[in-house]
């Protein structure tokens, strides 16, 4: 017998279809995005309310099935149940074709008989599941997951408030799916509806953050353990984000926020290189900043770039090549790189300089290099930099300025030092998020959204993008992706777990930076259409490029994933 019913449901059962589709995607799951979860839950609850009203369902009546609307919930569950059971085992489809035909007017009992035939161990669903059960329902679910420590569940029930068990009126629409999923177990190991768990996971993380905010550490501890376990039941981006956030919260609770020995600048550089390769954010940053610098250097014969974020110098080959090929020939190019000292006594800045010099020699650009080791940018004095007459200066900073906000007065000092350098242009690339608010809970929420979006985009770049041409472009290797995730994970850890001068990932939005720059005496330079076109083209090359968006905002370029801007390139000059 063909599986006609589930397909017809798609068009006729408004309420049920969204649930069955959701349950189907819940178990399959390749990263339903974080924001999708929330909208689907609220969407579901609206549709359910409508269906309950009429007498006999009209749409089905047209087909010849008499189903009372009050039974619709029941029927929907059974269909979903059936779909799940059929979907889980390929051998069952053959069994389905051998079954006896039932009277199609009696949809409800047909479904029940199907289910009983296919899966004789399952009890037929009863009404208690429909009419909004559920602390017991969800406890059953939780204890499936957490076999050994039932102590957790007791702790959870002791927690007052709506964090773990949202009020009953919301439970009603979601309970059919949780009911359905907990009642059938095609494989004994299988957990529960992961979408339901996803929502619970978010609630748990938020509740934990709230507990930390209120200094309620015992509750926080329980919640963070719970979050860790729930995180494992998810798949893809959601799982990774949740794991990192849970770990960061745990570090905050146990006050483990010192820097680990692994955090040498060399290791950070390595992680950043992998991040550079996996996703377009850094490339976008470099290309757009270079375009701005190139335009500022138009027609100048001697140029000097001061780079606050030297790292491996990946930004400069492209600029040097563009300068070499510009009409009128290349200028004399001087580069001053500033970076933190590496722990192991090697002068990595000098090595980078050598390589750049080699490149410059190859493409016939006159090149001079100087490296400065500085623990913090605020230690820099313009006098050290050997600024010469007749030289045009550009200052570049990629993801460096926000770290200065950890110490009061540092960023003002650096900006006044920059002003003394009299740059033709100051290019700044920063994360587009407010992770520096005074209230911990707000920072937590903001960063949860931000990093979820970021991990979503990483996930898609790993899978070769939006199904372009099947065999597509396999972008990053697994190792690169993992390293990029570690890179982001360290940022998450810093935002959530650390405080005071240790918390260096103090991201701010473009508006906030704008205010700061303008009050320091800078004004915005519009990044032209060339930068925009180049950026768009660059993004088109990335697998998953459909998700990335370049936006122009008051002359600054923002790169985002779908609707959420993630990093911003802006250019400034002295007023």
């Amino acid at each position, binding site marked *: 017998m063909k599986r006609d019913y589930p397909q017809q449901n798609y068009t006729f059962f408004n309420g049920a279809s969204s649930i069955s589709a959701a349950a189907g995607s819940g178990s399959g799951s390749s990263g339903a995005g974080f924001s999708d979860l929330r909208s689907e839950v609220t969407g579901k609850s609206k549709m359910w309310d409508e269906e309950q009203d009429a007498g006999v369902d009209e749409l089905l009546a047209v087909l010849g099935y008499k189903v009372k609307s009050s039974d619709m919930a029941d029927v929907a569950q059974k269909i979903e149940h059936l779909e799940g059971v059929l979907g889980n085992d390929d051998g069952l489809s053959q069994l389905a074709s051998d079954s006896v035909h039932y009277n199609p007017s009696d949809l409800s009992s047909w479904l029940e008989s199907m289910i009983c035939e296919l899966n004789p161990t399952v009890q037929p669903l009863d009404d208690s599941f429909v009419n909004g059960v559920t602390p017991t329902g969800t406890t059953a679910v939780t204890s499936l997951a957490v076999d050994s420590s039932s102590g957790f569940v007791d702790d959870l029930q002791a927690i007052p408030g709506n964090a773990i068990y949202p009020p009953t009126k919301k439970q009603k629409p979601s309970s059919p799916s949780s009911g359905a999923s907990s009642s059938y177990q095609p494989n004994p190991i299988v957990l529960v509806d992961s979408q339901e768990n996803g929502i619970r996971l978010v609630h748990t993380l938020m509740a934990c953050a709230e507990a930390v905010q209120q200094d309620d550490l015992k509750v926080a501890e329980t919640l963070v353990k719970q979050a860790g376990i729930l995180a494992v039941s998810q798949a893809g981006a959601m799982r990774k984000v949740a794991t990192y956030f849970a770990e960061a919260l745990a570090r905050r609770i146990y006050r483990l926020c010192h820097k680990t020995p692994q955090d040498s600048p060399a290791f950070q550089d390595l992680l950043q290189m992998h991040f550079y390769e996996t996703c377009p954010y850094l490339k976008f940053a470099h290309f757009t900043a270079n375009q701005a610098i190139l335009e500022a250097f138009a027609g100048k014969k001697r140029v000097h770039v001061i780079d606050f974020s030297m790292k491996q110098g990946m930004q400069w080959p492209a600029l040097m090549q563009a300068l070499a090929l510009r009409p009128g020939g290349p200028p004399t190019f001087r580069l001053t790189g500033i970076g933190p000292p590496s722990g192991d006594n090697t002068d990595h800045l000098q090595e980078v300089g050598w390589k750049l010099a080699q490149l410059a020699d190859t493409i016939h650009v006159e090149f001079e290099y100087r490296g400065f080791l500085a623990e913090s940018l605020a230690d820099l004095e313009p006098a050290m930099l050997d600024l010469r007459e007749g030289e045009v200066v550009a200052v570049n900073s990629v993801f460096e300025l926000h770290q200065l906000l950890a110490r009061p007065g540092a960023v003002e000092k650096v900006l006044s030092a920059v002003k003394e350098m009299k740059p033709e242009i100051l290019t700044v690339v920063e994360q587009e998020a407010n992770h520096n608010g005074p209230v911990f809970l707000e920072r937590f929420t903001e960063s949860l959204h931000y990093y979820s979006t970021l991990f979503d985009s990483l996930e898609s770049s790993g899978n070769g993008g939006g199904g372009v041409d099947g065999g597509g*472009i396999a972008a990053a290797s697994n190792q690169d992706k993992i390293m990029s995730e570690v890179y982001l994970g360290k940022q998450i850890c810093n935002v959530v777990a650390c405080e005071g001068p240790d918390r260096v990932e103090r991201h701010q939005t473009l508006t906030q930076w704008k205010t700061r720059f303008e009050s320091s005496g800078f004004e915005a330079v519009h990044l032209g259409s060339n930068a925009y076109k180049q950026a768009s083209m660059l993004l088109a090359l990335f697998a998953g490029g459909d998700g990335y968006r370049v936006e122009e905002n008051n002359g600054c370029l923002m790169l985002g994933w779908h609707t959420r801007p993630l990093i911003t390139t802006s250019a400034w000059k002295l007023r």
Partner: protein
Amino acid sequence: MLQIVDINGDLERETKKLEQNFCINDHVDLLIEVLQRLDGRSLAAAACVCRQWCSIVRNDSLWEHLCFGNVSPPPSIGIRSVVLALGGYRRLYMVCVRPVASQLKRRRIDGGESEVVRRVWNRHEVELSLSLFCVEYYERLLGGGGVVGGESRATSLKFLCKAVNVSI
């Protein structure tokens, strides 16, 4: 009757003699003209035909034509020295131009436009390819004993390439 047949026979023999005397390999300029019109894959196949063809195809000017022959406006003169310094046009084609073109073409097909085998490049695409080529060169420099260490193959262009591991 016999005479007419003989004349035809003569004609045939004449044509056959002419055909046997003409060998494309003797006329390298003609060969190059023909090869200039091929796409990358065919050029690579042509390189496998014989030693002479191989040496002709390895000549960078053919690949230069393939990369930038269809650029409007025509690229500036300085580009050649830069590209040659960074590894040559054949490498540029293999590492940057081909993947970039096929990625962009794929995107356009998705948009519903018809495919053109030899597209006309615009200035931005040329600049982008050159920049990526330069970055790749630099990465190879870094990879040979730099701080990053480990891999000797440049990896920043991995996002352009398919998963097949081809050692250059």
